[in-house]
């Protein structure tokens, strides 16, 4: 407990309270109080504890405590063979396992310097984008639930269920796929799979406006999120925030377009997708509403990318010719890809042996959660849940 702030009596002289860059005038006797938010709290989306210091209804300090889900992913990366590490990548951002597989595979491929068959690249992008839709569905759905809108959550899970069924058909797993392998894919898509993906795209795209109306422009939702938890663009850059948070703060940056990998450069040149950047439609640029809006819009763009891939799919192998037991040449590479939550970076170091010297995972959530220390102070306690939810963190990734 910290010291008691005293004005010259209840209702007496006004006292200025400083919190971050903001100032508030209080004229009542208040006392700092420490509140444990989590580790078991539904709004932390996993196990995170935030020690919140509050002065009345005002948050004056926030200290995230992580590590409850630490599973030594980086240490394991040094102790197993290159390919054996792949299933562990599923488990850091478990809502976007396809993207994690892709990030790790691309990093190893960058050191090996191998080219991937075009069919494999196309299916990789389809899977990554479908997974992005699934991940954003959870992000937006659970965010709605965090601040009191239960119904959209159920619809979002229904749509995600279909997406998971599609993945089950292609690789047998619903959550931890390990489908995108170093050098290509685990196997080819089963017959009729692409038609079903197309059907999913059509159905989901038709339903999208309903969800948009139901949650995003819902009056209560807007009042709860607009002008709340504003993160200015320069703070995003300073803290290394990426993904929808960065675009939600009005910074026009998407690795798929600006530093294209895989076939994204070609898709972009074809004009098949856009990068939604928030404009502060409902309040200030960088508020919670903007971040949610970006996620919602990105689902539409993902559908368009999937469609482009479906239209350009071609026959061919789905695996480059690589030996059964991988030997990665001596070298090191850093590859960052656009995950649903931001830039997922893999820094891998090889000394030419069967196992890695170092597998570093730069999880976007780890960097994104750090900003809470800066953005929570000055907010109301009731808004803390709205702000934490809008950063869309997955604890499996922050703790690895």
């Amino acid at each position, binding site marked *: 407990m910290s010291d008691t702030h005293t004005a010259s009596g209840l209702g007496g002289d006004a006292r200025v309270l400083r919190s971050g860059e903001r100032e508030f005038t209080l004229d009542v006797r208040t006392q700092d109080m420490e509140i444990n938010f989590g580790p078991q709290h539904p709004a932390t989306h996993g196990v995170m504890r935030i020690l919140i210091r509050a002065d009345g209804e005002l948050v004056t300090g926030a200290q995230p405590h992580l590590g409850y889900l*630490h599973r030594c992913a980086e240490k394991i990366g040094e102790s197993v063979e290159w390919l054996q590490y792949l299933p562990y990548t599923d488990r850091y951002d478990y809502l976007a396992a396809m993207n994690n597989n892709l990030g790790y595979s691309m990093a190893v491929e960058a050191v090996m310097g191998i080219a991937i068959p075009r069919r494999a690249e196309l299916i990789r992008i389809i899977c990554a984008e479908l997974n992005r839709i699934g991940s954003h569905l959870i992000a937006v759905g659970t965010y709605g639930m965090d601040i009191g809108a239960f119904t959209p959550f159920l619809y979002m899970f229904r749509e995600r269920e279909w997406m998971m069924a599609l993945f089950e058909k292609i690789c047998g797993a619903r959550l931890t796929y390990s489908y995108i392998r170093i050098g290509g894919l685990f196997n080819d898509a089963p017959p009729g799979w692409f038609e079903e993906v197309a059907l999913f795209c059509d159905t989901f795209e038709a339903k999208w406006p309903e969800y948009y109306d139901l949650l995003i422009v819902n009056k209560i939702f807007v009042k709860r999120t607009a002008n709340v938890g504003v993160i200015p663009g320069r703070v995003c*850059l300073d803290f*290394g925030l990426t993904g929808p948070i960065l675009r939600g703060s009005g910074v026009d940056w998407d690795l798929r377009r600006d530093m294209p990998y895989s076939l994204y450069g070609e898709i972009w040149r074809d004009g098949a997708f856009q990068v939604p950047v928030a404009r502060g439609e409902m309040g200030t640029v960088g508020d919670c509403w903007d971040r949610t809006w970006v996620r919602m819009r990105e689902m539409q763009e993902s559908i368009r990318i999937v469609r482009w891939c479906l239209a350009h799919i071609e026959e061919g192998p789905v695996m480059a010719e690589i030996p059964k037991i991988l030997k990665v*040449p*001596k070298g090191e*590479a850093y590859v960052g890809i656009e995950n649903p939550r931001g830039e997922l970076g893999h820094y891998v170091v090889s000394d030419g042996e069967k196992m890695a010297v170092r597998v570093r995972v730069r999880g976007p959530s780890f960097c994104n959660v*750090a900003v809470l220390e800066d953005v929570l102070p000055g907010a109301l306690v009731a808004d803390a849940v709205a702000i934490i939810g809008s950063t869309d963190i997955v604890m499996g990734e922050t*703790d*690895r």
Partner: protein
Amino acid sequence: MDFQGIHDRLRAIGAPGLVGADEPRQGDPKDKKDKGRAGDPFVLVDPQRLTDFLRVCRDDERLCFEMLVDLTATDPAKDQAHLWVNVQLLSLRHRQRLAIKCLLEKAAPRLPTTVPVYRASQWHERECAEMFGITFEGHPDPRNVLLPADWVGHPLRKDYQYPKEYHGISCE
């Protein structure tokens, strides 16, 4: 700018602490032991001047690395005398990346904190400190971030001894 351009620019403006550059190369076919190196190029920087180096990278017009994407360390091998500190910078304006490597003596792994330049490195440095035993002098909040406060040893060091027990819980 490609890597060569960035390196030339760094040399032209006399970036503090710049030691050299390392680019991937083919192995020497005559020498069987020389297998070359694959992957990305990086610049080598003196760890004691890393903070000044980063400040130049961030503020120079032509470089303009607004974002520190990652800061981590690597223990290359048990018998090596140095740890690496690896930094990944990103310039949104010029759409370019820069990988930085510092060699840090294992005997005394200390370097000044880079938090005054990029606040992003605050948590990365905390993680490096607990995992590798590196001290970042002047860090504003040098607590453990992922490990418990009373954890013994630095798990990502190659000479790390696995614990036999933790608070009475057997780990064997």
